[in-house]
């Protein structure tokens, strides 16, 4: 807690109470080394002290609501009925349903619709190659793996749209601050287009990659495994690439070919997503394909 942070009176009363009770429990032979030492002092004087402590502990337990209630009522007054209504407006799921219930891959679009979408894109942009995008998706999967395992978002700077990149970086930092680690090694072994569309504003292509390898998340301080494990497995991920509807494939291939779509130089971006040579912002999706969504199967 930040030094000097001012808490409301009701909270201070409760924290003082909980601090005292924690100290009391820690020194009353409930657990730990202190408790073991206290158990060795089985003299009559030691027994009397233990008895007094037990009485105090019982008193503290009995008085719990006296200290808890003011804070509880103050908080309830703060959130009121609106808080209860808002709390009920969010869908909360627990247990295995929470872990496995969301993120199932959407069904593939009908082949005819995918072909029509790709044809609409290719008709306008003669340089568009589906193979270039699927090959890029394979390379992107390797970089996503490195980014998640190392906790460094910089691996994804050259292909993620600005908004997705910011969110990805913030989530990695948040996980790191909470001691959630990810180990693993995986790669894409296959990539197929499962969706393609063109609207007056944007063109989108969804590529499903089949990944092979292993991955495991842990809580560092307790060592508790969260998701995954050391055994190798196979799973799918959906990568959605998008660009402005008037963007054209650059002559040298653009981002899928690791080239700046503006000046054609080998891709090297600053943290803002601008080319180091021509200063063009290349990850806004205005000039070339960028990754706008990354969806993993629940695991």
């Amino acid at each position, binding site marked *: 807690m930040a030094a000097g942070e001012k808490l409301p009176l009701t909270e201070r009363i409760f924290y003082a109470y909980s601090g005292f009770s924690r100290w009391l429990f820690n020194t009353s032979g409930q657990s730990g080394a202190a408790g073991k030492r206290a158990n060795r002092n089985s003299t009559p004087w030691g027994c009397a002290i233990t008895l007094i402590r037990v009485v105090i502990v019982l008193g503290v337990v*009995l008085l719990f609501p006296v200290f808890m*209630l003011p804070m509880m009522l103050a908080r309830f007054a703060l959130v009121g009925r609106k808080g209860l209504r808002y709390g009920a*407006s969010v869908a909360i799921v627990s247990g295995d349903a*929470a872990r496995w219930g969301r993120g199932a891959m959407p069904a593939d679009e009908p082949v005819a619709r995918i072909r029509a979408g790709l044809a609409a894109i290719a008709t306008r942009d003669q340089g568009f190659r589906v193979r270039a995008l699927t090959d890029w998706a394979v390379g992107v999967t390797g970089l996503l793996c490195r980014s998640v395992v190392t906790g460094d978002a910089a691996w994804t700077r050259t292909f993620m749209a600005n908004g997705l990149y*910011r*969110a990805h970086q913030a989530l990695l930092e948040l996980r790191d601050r909470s001691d*959630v680690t990810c180990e693993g090694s995986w790669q894409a072994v296959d990539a197929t287009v499962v969706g393609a569309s063109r609207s007056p504003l944007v063109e989108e292509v969804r590529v499903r990659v089949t990944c092979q390898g292993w991955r495991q998340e842990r809580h560092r301080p307790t060592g508790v495994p969260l998701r995954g494990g050391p055994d190798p497995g196979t799973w799918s991920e959906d990568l959605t690439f998008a660009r402005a509807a008037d963007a054209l494939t650059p002559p040298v291939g653009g981002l899928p070919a690791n080239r700046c779509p503006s000046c054609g130089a080998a891709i090297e971006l600053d943290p803002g997503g601008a080319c180091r040579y021509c200063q063009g912002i290349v990850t806004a999706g205005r000039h070339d394909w960028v990754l706008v969504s990354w969806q993993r199967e629940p695991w």
Partner: protein
Amino acid sequence: MVNGTVTGVLAENGVGIAFGIIEAIVFASWALMFAVLLGILVTVTVMRRRRLDRLARTPPAPSADPRLPALLVELRRSDPHFDPELLLEAAQIACLVMFAAQSTGDEQVIRHLAAPSFWRTFFGRYVRTQARDARVQRAAPKDPDRASSRQARLPVDYQATAPELIGLELGPQQRACVRVSFYQLRAVVAPGARAQTAMASATSLSSLAVSLGAVVGERLSEAATGPSWLSWEGQYDLAFIRPGGSHTDPDAAVASRTCTTCGATYRSELATTCANCKASRPLPWGEWRLADLTPVE
């Protein structure tokens, strides 16, 4: 001697009365605490059930304001560099940093993004309280032998998707409303985590009672520390404000990545100042600040 006896009786009576008062206070406070807790749990559970029933019957809430295209044209006339994409990014990041504040207790980033008026809204107060709780929990001394020290609620996944600009108001203060869907997944590492998480998502009084009983049972039996899961899913409408007549700086997106004072690169997305020269970090969306947040019911 008579005096001594009377004093003794009075003292005994006084002590008895004092104990009686304490007993009454303790009893009343236990009763009131259970009544309040049960009342809250029952109300939320019943509301949640009603919401699910209502969702099954009614169509989703309407989205964009039909006047939006005309208002966008008008805004672009006065602010040619205005880019709605930046507002959509702002909404995604705002949702995520609120989640961060509640998980880690770090309010700095959301303070950087929010207008002062945000802290007077329901969600402002809620985020502040949750963040404070997270800080207190993190600051508490850890004893590996104690079950309470093996508890953690870990942010594992967060997605803010499909942001959509649904409203715009122009005037002395400009106001933009962005609707965004969010999903968050937390791992709960604690003894009896499964029952704890089940209680949080109970939609009927019977499931609530069963999970409450399981929590107490698992706590008493010092059940093994294992992970369980909690996910939240829903939609928020985020209102952003800025003074009327503001102009978007086309270089702001780059300035939010590289310090304009010393040239150092911001390595952290959650940094609000330059680590090198301590200069304040500009936001890519300029003067827009989060003013309110409402769940879409």
